[in-house]
């Protein structure tokens, strides 16, 4: 639309420029702080010309927080959540959309409810489940009397124990157990024309063949979008990894940041802290920049 609005255009540019500065300033400030030595970083105001200690600071932060193995952990963790989500929610959405089995509505609603309660609010009991993932099943056996029955018959006391603390499954599985991706796929599957199913049936393709040869290739865009946002979401998780990984060698990069906070009254090594922050935020920033299209698409589609 062509409209002569010189003043409004000026205001637009000004407001957007301020927005840009506010959005970028923290990144720039962190990056500059990471190049200073201990003295310069604590000057007020901090010199805005980069110093010469960038590589040293990165190395110090890397060693102090043990970032090498922790970044690998983060990568496996975030990748695992992304893959798990993509696979499990595609399966579930397929079941909900393309089949009519008894209890389908119940399944739909029981998955829908999981959208409402984030992990953070049910953190304590979820932790207890992760400590012994077979606990729920043991409790069911106890309550239904199967445990005592087996004990009376064979003399063996059933005691199911399987801890997931300090393991990748323990990190990954509870985060896969939500509905986010399921509805993204469901919306998409519903737009697939009925004729597609009918044609496949006529050609003799069963449901499994139809899923792998037709539905999955058509969902490529959704898979990319979902994988991107789930990777970011998992990489940025904090509370759950903090609880589940009690041993430092299993911790993730994001939780490792805590060890870089300068202690009150200690040496204010903000240059090292900022170097660590930079290392931890860089992978997600790269994903956002490279996968921008899928990221935006995934966010908008998965929340509707």
């Amino acid at each position, binding site marked *: 639309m062509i409209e002569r609005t010189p003043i*409004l255009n000026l205001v637009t540019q000004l407001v957007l420029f301020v*927005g840009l500065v506010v959005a970028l300033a923290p990144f720039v400030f962190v990056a500059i702080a990471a190049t200073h030595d201990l003295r310069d970083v604590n000057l007020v105001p901090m010199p805005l010309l980069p110093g010469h200690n960038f590589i040293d600071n990165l190395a110090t932060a890397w060693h102090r927080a043990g970032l090498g193995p922790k970044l690998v952990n983060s990568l496996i963790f975030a990748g695992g959540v992304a893959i798990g989500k993509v696979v499990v929610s595609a399966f579930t959405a397929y079941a909900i959309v393309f089949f009519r089995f008894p209890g389908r509505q119940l399944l739909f609603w029981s998955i829908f409810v999981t959208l409402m309660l984030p992990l953070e609010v049910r953190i304590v009991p979820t932790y207890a*489940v992760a400590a012994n993932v077979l606990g729920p099943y043991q409790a069911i056996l106890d309550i239904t009397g199967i445990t005592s029955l087996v004990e009376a018959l064979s003399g063996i006391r059933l005691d199911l124990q399987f801890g997931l603390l300090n393991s990748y499954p323990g990190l990954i599985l509870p985060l896969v157990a939500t509905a986010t991706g399921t509805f993204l796929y469901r919306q998409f599957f519903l737009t697939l024309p009925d004729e597609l199913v009918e044609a496949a049936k006529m050609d003799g393709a069963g449901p499994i063949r139809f899923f792998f040869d037709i539905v999955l290739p058509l969902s490529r865009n959704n898979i990319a979008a979902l994988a991107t946002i789930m990777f970011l979401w998992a990489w940025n998780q904090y509370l759950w990894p903090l609880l589940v990984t009690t041993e430092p060698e299993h911790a993730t990069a994001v939780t490792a940041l805590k060890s870089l906070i300068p202690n009150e009254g200690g040496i204010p090594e903000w240059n090292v802290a900022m170097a660590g922050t930079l290392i931890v935020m860089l992978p997600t920033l790269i994903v956002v920049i490279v996968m921008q299209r899928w990221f935006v698409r995934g966010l908008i589609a998965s*929340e509707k």
Partner: protein
Amino acid sequence: MEKRATFGSWWIGIAFAVPQVILIFTFFYWPAGEAIYWSLTLQQPWGGGNIWVGLDNFRQILDDPIYWASVLRSVVFAVASTGLAMGGALILAVFVDRECTGSRLYRVVLIWPYGIAAPALGLAFRFLMAPEAGFLAFLNQIAPGLWDPGLNGTDAMIEIIVAFSWKYVGYDFIFFLSALQAIPRAQIEAAALDGAGWLRRLRDIQLPLLTPTVFFLLVIDLTESFQDSFGIVDIMTAGGPARATELMVYKIYFDGFRGFDYSGAAAQSIILMVLIMLLTVLQFRFIERRVHYK
């Protein structure tokens, strides 16, 4: 919406759903149920027996002024950060939508903050807003003691609100912009031909058409402020000074894992669950009906 053509062999359908069902039963429904059970009993932290106490845990929490203070703080945090994030995002989206020179750049850069982990940006903002070094420290050179989030509760609260809003401006911006771009240009052009200026078009066409997005983001931001705030609080203030930034989720974590008061933490979880469910139901039941759709 339902499909007409489906597959008949429904046992395969069930097989496809099994992984999800096992996962949500084990890691969602069981813990949620257990939270309800724990909130009605007194749990020993190291296992071994529990005593049924009915609603005593809830009574104890609801009589506790420290709990109510944390609820109040969470509400202040939620309202302030949601308002800041949505307001900022709306202004930016409206201006980017005008498609002036450089709007492509803004569209790319303004969403970056949302990609950053809450604890990482917490640490960055902790430095930026530290009283003795960083960006805001000059305030203390002008007037010593003017800014100190380590000692002053209000300063600490401002600190976490700013950090949280900074991240969510990027998120809200994506949604506002996509909603603005979905408005048919023809409507706006017709209004322009009728002589409506930019402000008038904004007020009478674009903003009314944005109401669904506004309410959607309102619920999402409020819910996220209860949960995503944990990393920011833990890194920036650890709930301090003197509990001044102890939000509800942080208190659950602290009572449960540091104080080993599983029952109290479970009861608090239940209250928070009910609160978040009410928010979600509110969105689906009342708000979606009254807002304007095309």
